[in-house]
């Protein structure tokens, strides 16, 4: 091997190693910062609803060898449920919409208009999430609270999780809707490209055997979308799980309570970390900050888990 080749190999390896290494460093850093909280909380952290900074105007006490404020406890089941439930609702709403939009853009729009509409969808994908949040806060919540949820809850009364009380507009479904709107352009833009990548020969073959336009979409194009759909849904789920500002503004920021129905206020892990950091910084024992780091660690692991599950779900033959 020539010296220049060796140098090239070393540099490229170094650059390539930066990505997995930074993940590892992030994990180690979170683990280090969360360690006192992990020892104090134990497994209850994941299975109970008890985020409580304790009596801030009392004097610190020692529990399990850790200094904490009296009465403090840190457990986040309600955050895990809120995060997963809002992301799941978002995906349930966004996938059909996104697939529909992609097919419409790729197949039903006249060629001249297509690039402009596609550009619009892609622009929508780059709107900052806080703008979606603001719109949800100012426009969507009053609309849903006064004119939609009361009727929806009445029609669906008797259906578990969908019936009354209709709540205040701040909550799980509102968060799901706004998250879905943020995910639709992501899904639509990616799937449109996948549809346009369908070989022309396949379409022509379909036409040759007398298939209608709809049959070509259903029998030739849709089956080929399965793999890209799983990929892009995972991406969208990642965005929904980690979304912070928009959810903070519209979720109702519930504390220590599981949602009773889809109109109930919730909190998510990411938005809770933001909203509670300042309060946590006032804890003279620092245990609240360690607790926030533990939420961060849990969120990171949850995202990794979701990605891993998506990998497993992906059909073997297709992943090549």
């Amino acid at each position: 091997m020539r010296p220049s080749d060796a140098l090239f190999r070393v540099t490229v390896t170094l650059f390539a190693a930066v990505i997995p290494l930074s993940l590892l460093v992030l994990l180690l850093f979170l683990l280090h910062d969360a360690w006192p909280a992990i020892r104090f909380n134990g497994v209850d952290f994941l299975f109970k609803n008890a985020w409580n900074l304790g009596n801030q105007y009392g004097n610190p006490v020692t529990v399990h060898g850790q200094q904490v404020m009296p009465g403090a406890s840190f457990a986040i089941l309600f955050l895990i449920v809120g995060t997963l439930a809002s992301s799941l609702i978002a995906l349930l709403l966004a996938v059909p919409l996104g697939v529909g939009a992609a097919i419409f853009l790729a197949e039903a729009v006249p060629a001249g208009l297509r690039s402009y509409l596609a550009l619009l969808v892609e622009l929508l994908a780059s709107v900052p999430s806080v703008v979606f949040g603001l719109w949800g806060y100012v426009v969507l919540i009053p609309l849903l609270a006064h004119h939609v949820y009361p009727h929806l809850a009445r029609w669906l009364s008797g259906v578990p999780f969908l019936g009354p009380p209709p709540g205040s507009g701040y909550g799980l479904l509102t968060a799901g809707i706004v998250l879905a709107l943020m995910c639709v352009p992501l899904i639509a833009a990616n799937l449109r490209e996948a549809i346009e990548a369908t070989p022309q020969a396949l379409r022509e073959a379909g036409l040759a055997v007398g298939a209608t336009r709809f049959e070509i979409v259903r029998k030739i194009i849709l089956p080929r979308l399965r793999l890209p759909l799983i990929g892009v849904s995972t991406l969208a789920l990642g965005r929904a799980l980690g979304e912070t500002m928009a959810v903070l503004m519209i979720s109702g920021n519930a504390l220590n309570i599981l949602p009773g129905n889809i109109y109930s206020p919730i909190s998510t892990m990411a938005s809770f970390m933001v909203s509670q950091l300042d309060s946590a910084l006032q804890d003279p024992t620092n245990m609240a900050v360690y607790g926030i780091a533990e939420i961060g660690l849990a969120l990171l692991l949850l995202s990794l888990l979701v990605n891993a599950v998506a990998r497993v779900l992906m059909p073997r033959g297709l992943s090549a």
Partner: protein
Amino acid sequence: MTHRSQPTRLRAPRFALLAAAAGLLAAGSAAAATLTLNETGSSLLYPLFNLWVPAYTKAHPGVQINTASTGSGTGIAQSIEGLVQFGASDAYLSDAQMKKNPEMLNIPVAISSQMINYNLPGLNNVHLKLNGTTVAGMYDGRIRYWDNAALKQLNPGVNLPHHLIVTVHRTDGSGDTFMFSQFLSFTDKTWAQKVGYGTSVNWPAVPGAIGANGNPGMVSALRNAPYSIAYVGVSFKNQTEKDGLGEAMLQNRAGRFVMINEKTVPAAAAAMVPKTPRDERISMIYAPGAESYPIINYEYVMVKRDQPDAQQAAAIKQFLTWAVSPQGGNALGFLKQVNFLPLPASARALTLAQIGQIR
């Protein structure tokens, strides 16, 4: 000759450029000569700071003051970390926090109070009578509906609706939460034992309860969600009135139902100000006296005793001294707009003594 004249011709613009650059540098150093002070924290104190700063900086062009409304929690945290010079807070630091940060001064600059507001369609022009026990019951789930027997008993003749109560609390660390939860702790034993008080508390898990960010968030949550109840700092009274929200009469220690006005807040202050210790960390919640309004407090500015340089220390002292002076920031022209009270003379003397410690 032509060859030699060229550089001479070039020299003129070059010199102009150099002069321009020098001018810019001079302007830059002139800008650096203005001292920048930063304030963040309490959304209750924020409207007052926004009245103060333009008036003060007009008279003192050498100082620039930036303000931000982020919640008392942020004000406390960032002033302790030294990120801002003024941390605005409606709550004083706890003993444990003072032990950890002994260099912090809790400097009162005015007296404030807190309303309990609601959005009850058709009843917002009625001042409902509430006491600490019923409000605590609403916030911890013992009272779920507006037509609960306890509420009916306090408000005979008012046609209260059979509708779920939507309680709104602050999500951010907040001095308003401190005042409110302390009022509930002092009036309701169950609340005192189970929840207690602080800038953020362990809100009981009540279905439908929502969290809002800052006083502006509280007001818009009230506006958005009918049948809701929330606690709002008095500097937002103009806002709650504009939005047509209801304001409750609260039962004081003497058993009378009172609202915020020119009599009830000074009455409560008169009962509590003489008890103020030298470090001025004192709760004025649930003051004795027939006329006293039960939720009043000192508005604090958190300042580090030791500043990085003498110039900054002097600027901070000058501003705070102006802020608490009856001819300066404590003039009624400022305070009336946000419904605050000026510091009484005895409290002002303690505050000036604390300001004198900044160096």
